[in-house]
C-alpha cells in the first residue's frame, strides 16, 4: 500500500482496459475470462417498452411523477427512443416506413468517457468488463453524466425513498433486496443487472464450472417479447452474443465496423457513436425494410 499503492491506483483505470497504447486485438487484458456484452437487433425491436418496465421492476427505479419528469428527472435506465425517417430538405418527418425504435441503455464502454473523469473513482471498470457505479462512493459531481456521449446516466436530483408516492406502503415490499435503493445526490445507471450476473458467477463457482450462456439473463432481455436483446459472455465462443458479434464481424475496439468498411458485405452490426471511440459493449443490428412495397 502506501505511496506505491497510490501510484498504482493512479494508473488503475486503464489497467482493466482492452485498448492499451498498441491497441491490440486480444481482449485478454481482462483478469477474468468474462466480458459481458449485448447485441440488440433493431429489426426485431417493436418498441413496446416491456424492457423498460422490467428494468423498473428489477432495479428499484423510482417513479418520479409528471412534474419531475418534465424537469428531466426520469430515471429509466433503459429507454426506448423513437426516430422518424426524415424528408431531406423539407425538415419534416415521414411515417411511410413506420418509426425507428432504439432501446438505449448504458453501453458499458470499454474506453468509457465517464470513468476517467470521476474525481473519486466511483465509476470504474470491473474485471468482467462492466462499467461499475459505486453508489456509496459517489459524491455527485455529475462529471460522468456531462461527459457521457449517450446521456444514459441518471442522477438522483431528489431523495426518492423519502418522497411521497414514490414507494408508498405497501409498494416498498416490491423492492429488490439484491441492490440498494439510491438516495439523493447519487449518480446511477444500467449495470447489466449486476445482481444477476453476480449470482450466476457465484453459482458457477460453487459448482466448479465456467459460467454458461443459459445461466444469466438481464431483466430487459428476459422480458423482450421478440427476443431482440441478447446478453452474455463475449469470451465464451459458444454464447449467443459472441456468435452474433462474430457473424456481424463487429469488433469491440474499433471505430469503424465491417459494415461501413464495405457497404456491400450485407452486414448490419454497429456501435452507436463509435467514431468517438468509447468502444461500447452493446452491438446494434440495423433495422431492415422491404424495398418492393
Amino acid at each position, binding site marked *: 500500500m502506501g505511496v506505491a499503492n497510490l501510484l498504482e491506483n493512479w494508473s488503475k483505470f486503464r489497467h482493466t482496459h482492452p485498448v492499451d497504447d498498441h491497441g491490440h486485438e486480444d481482449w485478454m487484458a481482462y483478469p477474468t475470462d468474462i466480458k459481458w456484452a449485448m447485441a440488440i437487433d433493431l429489426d426485431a425491436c*417493436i*418498441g*413496446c*417498452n*416491456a424492457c423498460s418496465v*422490467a428494468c*423498473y*421492476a428489477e432495479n*428499484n427505479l423510482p*417513479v418520479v411523477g*409528471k412534474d419531475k*419528469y*418534465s424537469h428531466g428527472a*426520469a430515471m*429509466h435506465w433503459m429507454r*426506448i*427512443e*423513437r*426516430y*422518424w425517417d*426524415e424528408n431531406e430538405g423539407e425538415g419534416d*418527418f415521414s*411515417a411511410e*416506413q*413506420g*418509426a*425507428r425504435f432504439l432501446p438505449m441503455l448504458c453501453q458499458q464502454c470499454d474506453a468509457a468517457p465517464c470513468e476517467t473523469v470521476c474525481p473519486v473513482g466511483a465509476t470504474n471498470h470491473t474485471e468482467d468488463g462492466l462499467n461499475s457505479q459505486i453508489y*456509496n462512493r*459517489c459524491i455527485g459531481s455529475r462529471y460522468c453524466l456531462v461527459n457521457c456521449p449517450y446521456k444514459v446516466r441518471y442522477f438522483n436530483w431528489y431523495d426518492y425513498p423519502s418522497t411521497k408516492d414514490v414507494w408508498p406502503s405497501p*409498494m*416498498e415490499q*416490491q*423492492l*429488490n*433486496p439484491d441492490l*440498494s*435503493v439510491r*438516495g439523493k*445526490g447519487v449518480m446511477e445507471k444500467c449495470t447489466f443487472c449486476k445482481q444477476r450476473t453476480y449470482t450466476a458467477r457465484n453459482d458457477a463457482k460453487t459448482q466448479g464450472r465456467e459460467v454458461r450462456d443459459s445461466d444469466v439473463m438481464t*431483466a430487459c432481455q*428476459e*422480458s423482450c*417479447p*421478440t*427476443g431482440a436483446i441478447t446478453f452474455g459472455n463475449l469470451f465464451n465462443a459458444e454464447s*449467443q452474443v459472441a456468435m452474433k458479434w462474430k*457473424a*456481424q464481424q463487429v469488433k469491440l475496439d474499433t471505430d469503424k465496423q465491417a459494415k461501413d468498411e464495405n*457497404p456491400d458485405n*450485407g*452486414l*448490419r452490426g454497429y456501435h452507436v*457513436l463509435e467514431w468517438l471511440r468509447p468502444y461500447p459493449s452493446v452491438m446494434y443490428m440495423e*433495422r*431492415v*425494410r*422491404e*424495398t*418492393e*412495397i
Partner: protein
Amino acid sequence: MTENDFNRRDFLKVLGWGGTAVALSGCGNTSIQNGKEIITSFVTPPDYVIPSVANYFNTTCAQCSAGCDIMGRVREGRVLKAEGNPHSPINYGKMCGLGQAGVQNHYNPDRVTKPMLAGKEVTWDQALAAINDKLGGVKGEQVAFLTGDISGHPRVLLDNYLEALGSKNHFSYEAASPAVLRAANKKAYGVEMPRYRIDKARVVVSFGADFLGAWITPVHFAQMYARFRKGTRPEGRGVLVQFEPKMTLTGANADRWVGIRPGTEGVMALGLINALGAYGLHIPSDIAAAVKEYTPERVSLDTGVPFEQINKVAKILKERSPSLILAGDAAEGYAHGLQNALAIAMLNQVLGNIGKTVEAPASVPFPQLAPAVGNRASLVAFNKGLADGKYKVVFTYGANPVYSAPAALKFQDNFRKADFKVAFAHYMDETAQAADLVLPLASAMEDWATVVPEYTAVPEGGNSETYVHMSFRQPMMEKLYPDTRGIGDMLLALLKQRQPDTYKGFDDFYSYLHGAILKNKVALGSKASDDDDVFWNATVSKGIVPLSGHANKVSGKLTAADLKLPPTTGADIAYPLRLIPTVSASIRDGRNANEPWLQESPDPLTTVVWDSWVEINPKTAAKLGIKEGDIIEITSRSGSIKTQAYLFPGIHPDAIAVPVGYGHQGMGRYANSIGANVYSMLDPVFDDKTGDLAFNETNVKIAQSGERVILVKDEGAAGGSQAHMRIAVQWPVDRVDYSKEV
C-alpha cells in the same frame, strides 16, 4: 390440506430475513449497527426455501385477457417480480410491460381493503347478510351480473350462482374487445377466434389490427412476429403492410404504413381483390363481378391511397404466398364494421390462406370452463335493462362501466335506478363509488383461480387439431390485507347462502378447486392410480394443464352476397374530423391506469407520459395553426374534452386520435384527473349487425382553447430527428445478407 401445502402456506407468512433487508438508501447510514435489526426465523422450515435465494411459482397473468403464463419471483415471503413462464405456448417465457406492472397492481396503496356498505366499513358477515336480505325480496330475473372476460372455475361458480338465483342476466363487458371480429370470423371461417399463423405467412396485410400492441394476445403475436421477421427462416423475411388511419405500434413496425381514410378499409379490401384479379389470381366469377366496380382509381379516390400503392400491395400478395390478412379494431369500429371485416376476410379466402395461415382452434372439452368473452353490445343491453328498471340487484366484477360507458348512454343515471348495487372491486373506482356495497378483491397474486384463454396457442410439437390448455393462478404470498377475498371465495360464500348443503363441503375456493381438479384428473391427463397429492402438486407447479379439446374446421364460407358495403360518405361539414380512440399497449381500456410504471413508461409513438394527448397530422395542424402543447378542445355531438396537442406524422389528415383509459375520477393517486376521458364523448352509434358500440364513428371538431403547456414527453428537443448522427440506422432488405447471420 396436505402437509406439503401446509408448509407452503406457512412459508408465505414468513417475512424479513436477516441480511436480506432492502437497503433503503445506497448512501444512507454507513456505520455498522448492532442489535438494531430483528431476524425472524422459521418455526418449521420448508425444505425448498433458502433465505436470499428466490423461489419461482407459476401462475397466470391477470393484467389483460390474453392469459399469459408467468412465474412470480418470491423471496422472504414477498413477490418481487413477474417473469414469463418458458413452457407457455402463449408467451414463451416473455412478458409485456403491462404484465410486469402486475406487481404494482398487487402492492397498490389504493386498494380496497375492507367491505364497505353505503360508504361505511362493515364486516364480511354484515356484507353477506346485506346481500342475502336484498336478494330475498327480488325475483331471479331482477338480478344481473356484469363482468369482464371470465373463464375457468370462477366462471363455473358464477354460472351456478346465477342458476341458483334463477337469473340469466350475465353480461360480459369489455370496453376494448374484438367483438365484431368474432362475428365476422364466425361467418367467414366458421370459428370465432381462429389461430393466426403470422409466423407461417410471408406477407401480412393488417387492416388496423394492432397485434403487437393491444390486440387479443399481443405477447404471443410478438413472438410470432419475431419469427416472421427472421430473415434466416426458409421463407425469408416476412413483409408487413398496415392499412390504418392512425399509426399503431404495429403500424410503426410495418414495412409500409398506409394512412387510409377512416372507414374505407372494406373498400380497400375489395379493391385489392379486384387488383389481384388483374394480376391473374383466380377469383370466383361471382366475387369478381361483385368487386368489379372497385377499380384502383375509384378505390384510391375513396380511400385516399395512391393506386400505385394499391397495385404494389396486390402484386406482393400475388407473388408471395402464403399471406395473412388481419382485420382489427380500426377497421371494425363503424356502423358497417362487420361488412368491412367480411370484405377483409374475403381477401384471405381468395388468397387461399384459410387452413394455411388461418387455422382452426380446438374448443375446450369442458364448455363450462370456456371463457365468457366480453363485448360492448352487452353493456348496451345491460344499460337498457337498467333503464327499464328491470334489475333490482346488480353485481359488477372486473368492469368499470360507469367510467367507460359513453355519456350518451346515460349509464350513470340508469345504474342508480337499481336499488342494490354490489361491486367486487380492487380499487375504489367510479363504479365502486356508485355502488351500495363494495367487496374488496384479493389481487391475482393472492388468489386461486383457473384461466382458459380465448385465443388458443399451440406449443411446438403440440397437436394443433386438439390442443387447448387451462392455466392455474395460485397465491404467491400471504394476503396483504386479510379482509380481501378472491372472486372464487366470494361466489362460494354467496352460493352457500343459496344452496348450503351442496357447498358446505368446501370451506374455501381452494378446497373447491382442489376437489374439482382431482375429480377430473384422468381427463386432465393423469392415471387414476396416481396419488392425488403428487398429481395436484405437479399440476399446480407446472401451472399449465394441456387438455385435448374438440377439433374444429375452418373454411371460406363467404359468398359475393356478403360483400355489400355502404357508399363512402363525404366529409361531415359541422364536425369535419374523425375521432379515433386509441387503446394503448399499457393503459389499455383504463383498468391499469393506477400503476405508476405504466404512467411513467412513455407511449411508444408519442413518448408522452402522465397525461392524455390528441394526435394531429402536421398538415391539419398547420391549417388550423395548432402548435405542439396547445390545449385543444375536442367537441363531438355527444360531448367534449380538452387535452394537449401532439403533432404526429402517423395519422390521416382527416382523423385525430386520443388514447382511452385516462381521465379517471376515482381510481387512485396515480390515475385520478390525469388526462381526459375520451369514452365520455363517443357518439352512440352501433354496428348494424352485432349491435356493438362503434368506436370510430364519432365526428368531431377541434379548436384551440388558448392555453399552451410544455408537453411532458421523453422525446428531446430534436423531436424524432437523429440530427445526422446515424444512431438508428436502416438498411434495405436486399442489402442484407442473411446467410451470414445466426
